[in-house]
């Protein structure tokens, strides 16, 4: 049964807005209500179509009134910030993530109309360390429980959502653990990181990276909202790449720095709201993280259209490479031609230098 009234939090960000726009296009859904603290950009507002925008803070009990008066039956919680830069510091970020989720869940628990809750979670809950198995399934947990930052927030959020599910067994709860988003339009930690011409990484480490294309992320969210999957599912593209490989494929220059230097660089760049090099992000850059997507394909019933590699190719079309692959191929080709020429010259010189063969006349005499 398709949902009648959907409430989407975090609608002013790209993915939230895109989901609301997608749902608004579905005529089977009566109302789509978008909530965010900041109003969406004029361009986003145009795309949102018939979505009703409510400027509200989910940290405020007002959200309960919105849910009750509109008798919302499906809540999609996407107002989770992954970087301190995006929400004005670590303090406000934690408050938005944790307290915001608690408030929203409290409101949902009171609202009898709520039948379905979809959480946009993250594979960051698995942490990133040298003690972790290479590939995480939904049943696994972080060996080294993340102690701070976004990963800790995600773990806390999932914990609150689980207790909500226990208290309201009639609500079908879906938690989607997304890997890193990438694509031409989406704005994520990784996309801003890879947009830099020089990409500083941790010296001596190379992370395994699994990407999810923005279109697939949107499709999974839409399906989770309108379908009836309940449970936890990893969402990621097929295949993995190494971080060094990603940087090379994008034609970026990798600048490996010793980890302490990278830490201070991170504090410096964060001050300018640039790129996040928090300790947690650093651990991810060192070890990376890969998730198993069998549940996504078999139980959830969706196979991402883009593999990790294809998603990167699509993103690469929007970044201008510092070292274009054609140039590398050209240099390699020229060097190749040079080698062939040198080889040929060496061959002729060798031939010239070889002692002259005995004249056939003499040989004929000898043979006779």
């Amino acid at each position: 049964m398709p949902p009648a009234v959907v409430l989407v939090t975090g609608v002013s960000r790209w993915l939230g807005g895109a989901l609301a726009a997608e749902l608004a296009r579905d005529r089977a859904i009566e109302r789509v209500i978008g909530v965010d603290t900041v109003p969406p950009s004029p361009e986003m507002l145009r795309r949102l179509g018939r979505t009703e925008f409510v400027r509200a803070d989910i940290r405020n009990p007002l959200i309960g009134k919105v849910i009750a008066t509109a008798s919302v039956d499906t809540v999609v919680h996407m107002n989770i910030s992954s970087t301190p830069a995006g929400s004005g510091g670590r303090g406000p970020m934690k408050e938005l993530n944790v307290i915001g989720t608690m408030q929203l869940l409290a409101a949902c628990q009171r609202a009898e109309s709520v039948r379905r809750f979809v959480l946009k979670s993250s594979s960051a809950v698995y942490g990133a360390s040298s003690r972790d198995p290479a590939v995480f399934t939904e049943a696994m947990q972080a060996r080294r429980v993340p102690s701070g930052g976004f990963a800790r927030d995600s773990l806390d959020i999932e914990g609150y959502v689980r207790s909500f599910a226990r208290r309201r067994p009639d609500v079908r709860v879906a938690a989607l653990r997304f890997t890193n988003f990438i694509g031409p339009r989406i704005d994520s930690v990784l996309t801003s990181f890879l947009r830099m011409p020089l990409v500083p990484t941790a010296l001596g480490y190379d992370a395994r990276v699994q990407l999810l294309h923005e279109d697939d992320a949107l499709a999974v969210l839409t399906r989770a909202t309108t379908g009836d999957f309940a449970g936890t599912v990893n969402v990621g593209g097929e295949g993995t790449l190494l971080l060094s490989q990603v940087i090379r494929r994008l034609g970026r220059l990798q600048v490996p720095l010793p980890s302490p230097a990278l830490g201070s660089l991170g504090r410096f760049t964060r001050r300018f709201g640039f790129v996040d090099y928090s300790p947690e992000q650093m651990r991810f850059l060192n070890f990376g993280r890969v998730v198993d997507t069998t549940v996504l394909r078999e139980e959830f019933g969706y196979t991402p259209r883009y593999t990790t590699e294809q998603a990167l190719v699509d993103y690469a079309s929007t970044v201008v490479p510092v070292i274009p692959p054609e140039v590398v191929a050209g240099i390699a080709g020229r060097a190749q031609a040079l080698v062939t020429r040198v080889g040929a010259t060496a061959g002729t010189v060798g031939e010239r230098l070889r002692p002259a063969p005995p004249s056939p006349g003499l040989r004929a005499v000898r043979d006779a």
Partner: protein
Amino acid sequence: MPEARVIPLRPDDEEPRLPPPSSASWEEQVADGLEFLRRRVTGDYDTDEFGFDPDLTDHVLLPLLRPLFERWFRVETHGVENVPATGGGLVVANHSGTLPLDAMMATVALHDDHPARRRLRLLGADLVFDLPFIGSLSRKLGSTLACNEDAERLLTGGELVGVFPEGFKGIGKPFRERYTLQRFGRGGFVTAALRTGTPIIPCAIVGAEEAYPMIGNVKTVARLLGLPYFPVTPTFPALGPLGLVPLPSKWLIAFGEPIETASYGPAAAEDPMLVFNLTDQVRETIQQSLYQLLLQRKSVWG
């Protein structure tokens, strides 16, 4: 006219002039190298979810290990026919020699001496993956963390997995205890094989013990550096970095008959008695095979 003979006008026809083989292969090698560099710079190669980089392994890491395998240790491989040509298998070997050279040599042996050129996917301790450079290189060589999740994933994927159940107890044991197997962990490797129904291939490696004979262990330094042991060998640390050169012992690697596990069924992994028995069986087989190889070897350096 029987006496008539063809008198060659160009003596070249008699002995066809072949291009000097060295120069042709030299050009090809440079061309291969250039193509390899182009792939590396543009990231145009494949890696798997464990971080294995076959391109780097085949073109850099294995060629670096090969001289050590062929010339330095003169490794002789026996019983490669016991290693299946396709499908999963768990190679269980003794561990020794201060540095995990035995794991590297077993990898080269299975790649170069097995007709199917099998790749050995090693399981390493978490310390390995914590270290910069070494950790990432190990992953690129195909290793992953020694845990049941990874082992079972590799075995289900039809890979040949290499495991050293003795761990640090084996590799960091003193020289006087050479070729005596230590405790075989908690039998985690047996449960992995039982759950996936893959055969266990016992493997005995002789020669690694003498490459870096460990005559002492500075426990204080080890504790300071966070290492399981800090070795003292006849050349290390006395000769400094030169002490890292292994002694040229003669190596023998023997793969024994596979121990089949599929008939027990995956539920057997929950039967601790069976797991203990299988662990002991594998351990005994490797110990026997070690003694045989030692008898076979004429001398340590021979």
